[in-house]
């Protein structure tokens, strides 16, 4: 079995457009939550969202490449450029070696809706243009990036709701561990536009704290009133230890456990048993004790039931006052399909810069969360092992354990 290491990371998020900016925001406890004025007249209950700028890729990509790339693909491209550079992988290396891609994504709403609107208006499918099909398929990110970077290895998209990004890392880990691949680009992308989040808003689970957008996302706090949607993209380069050593790549961390489970329960309400099993499986696979884990980056999205059940699951696995716990969604909002990958990067940045980012807006933990060792202010601490939780609709759970 191969050891699997992380050799590169790239991030494009509402708290920073690159690793350095994101690291600073995490340390400072800076929120990326804003109000999108367009959402109210459109019919949203809540206009709160994480916001990122659409990158201008005209000088980076050809017209053919750009017309096929939707919003989430643009974010993924920018994050992947940073990750490849970070990993010291150039096009010559990719052309000479089998590099794969497994990326988390679970919607292309804007691309689909805009092309259907055009067909309805023009009554002619040709008039949607040649890029519509490649932007509208759920595998848009992987089909585009694999073409742009001329990848020749594994190539598909992982759709697992808000655990998509985490499962993409887990699956890449399995392929490299078993020797089927040496190097895989993985991550998660999430579109941010009013067409993408309307049906989620319709469930009534978004925070309505429009008076104080930066305080709206408050995981584990007793006054939380819902999540805040967000997005962007996060890319990690996973590689076998041997491959990384052979090419003198930076070794940023090692993946030692990937636990997964399905709740077999309600479609949207998370439970305690499923996440507990995922964490326990990851710990068993890592062959460590729960007490070896210093920090847990919680999935906690700021919904009343979800956070409380995750708190119970963490107590189940680690006992009361176990590892330090924070939810970076307090700053970023819920980055959905991207979150499982971005939160590994946030935790990696913390581990490399000796701090634990705060769970901002935590004034009074609720009863379940009061048993956790929650970090509400930036903590300067060295650590070398963390666990990152990601859960999604349908009861899909993923827990990753990474060590320095």
């Amino acid at each position, binding site marked *: 079995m191969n050891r699997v290491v992380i050799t590169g990371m790239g991030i494009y998020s509402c708290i920073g457009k690159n690793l350095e900016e994101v690291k600073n925001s995490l340390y400072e406890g800076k929120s990326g939550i804003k109000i999108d004025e367009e959402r109210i007249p459109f019919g949203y209950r809540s206009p709160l969202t994480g916001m990122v700028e659409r990158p201008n890729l005209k000088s980076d990509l050809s017209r*053919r490449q750009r*017309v096929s790339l939707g919003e989430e693909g643009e974010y993924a491209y920018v994050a992947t450029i940073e990750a490849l550079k970070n990993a010291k992988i150039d096009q010559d290396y990719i052309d000479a070696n089998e590099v794969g891609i497994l990326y988390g994504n679970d919607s292309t709403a804007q691309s689909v809706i805009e092309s259907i609107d055009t067909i309805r208006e023009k009554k002619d499918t*040709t008039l949607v243009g040649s890029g519509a099909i490649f932007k509208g398929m759920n595998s848009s990110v992987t089909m585009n990036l694999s073409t742009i970077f001329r990848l020749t290895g594994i190539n598909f998209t992982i759709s697992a709701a808000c655990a998509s990004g985490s499962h993409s890392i887990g699956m890449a880990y399995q392929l490299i561990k078993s020797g089927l691949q040496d190097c895989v680009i993985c991550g998660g992308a999430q579109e941010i536009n009013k067409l993408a989040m309307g049906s989620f808003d319709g469930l009534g689970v978004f925070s309505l704290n429009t008076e104080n957008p930066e305080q709206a996302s408050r995981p584990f706090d007793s006054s939380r009133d819902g999540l805040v949607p967000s997005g962007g993209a996060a890319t990690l380069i996973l590689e076998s230890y041997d491959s990384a050593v052979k090419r003198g790549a930076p070794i940023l961390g090692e993946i030692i456990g990937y636990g997964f489970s399905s709740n077999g329960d309600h479609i949207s309400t998370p439970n305690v048993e499923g996440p507990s099993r995922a964490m326990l499986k990851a710990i068993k696979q890592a062959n460590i004790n729960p007490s070896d884990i210093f920090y847990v980056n919680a999935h906690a999205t700021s919904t009343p039931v979800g956070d409380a059940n995750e708190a119970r699951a963490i107590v189940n696995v680690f006992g009361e006052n176990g590892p330090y716990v924070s939810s970076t969604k307090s700053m970023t909002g819920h980055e959905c399909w991207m979150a499982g990958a971005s939160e590994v990067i946030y935790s990696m940045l913390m581990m490399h810069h000796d701090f634990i980012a705060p769970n901002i807006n935590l004034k009074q933990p609720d009863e379940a969360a009061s048993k956790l060792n929650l970090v509400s202010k930036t903590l300067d601490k060295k650590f070398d092992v963390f666990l990152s939780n990601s859960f999604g609709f349908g009861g899909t759970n993923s827990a990753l354990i990474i060590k320095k």
Partner: protein
Amino acid sequence: MVKEVIIEKINDFLIDEFEVEQDDIAPEANLKDTLELDSLDFVDLVVAVESNFGVKLVGEDFVNVKTLQDFYDLIENKLS
């Protein structure tokens, strides 16, 4: 629409939207070999023609279109 206006509009969208090199624009230029338009670009040509001239082309219209001059002539015929 006079032929000069048709040619100017086509040249403009080829340069601006399709990023064809201005130096490659010539009546005898082959759309595939010289302007490097591929099968997917021909779909976008249909879109560009519809938005610029209000004319809907179909695949068969391109059967005898090899050069830019053929393309100018096609649009002129459709508009006449």
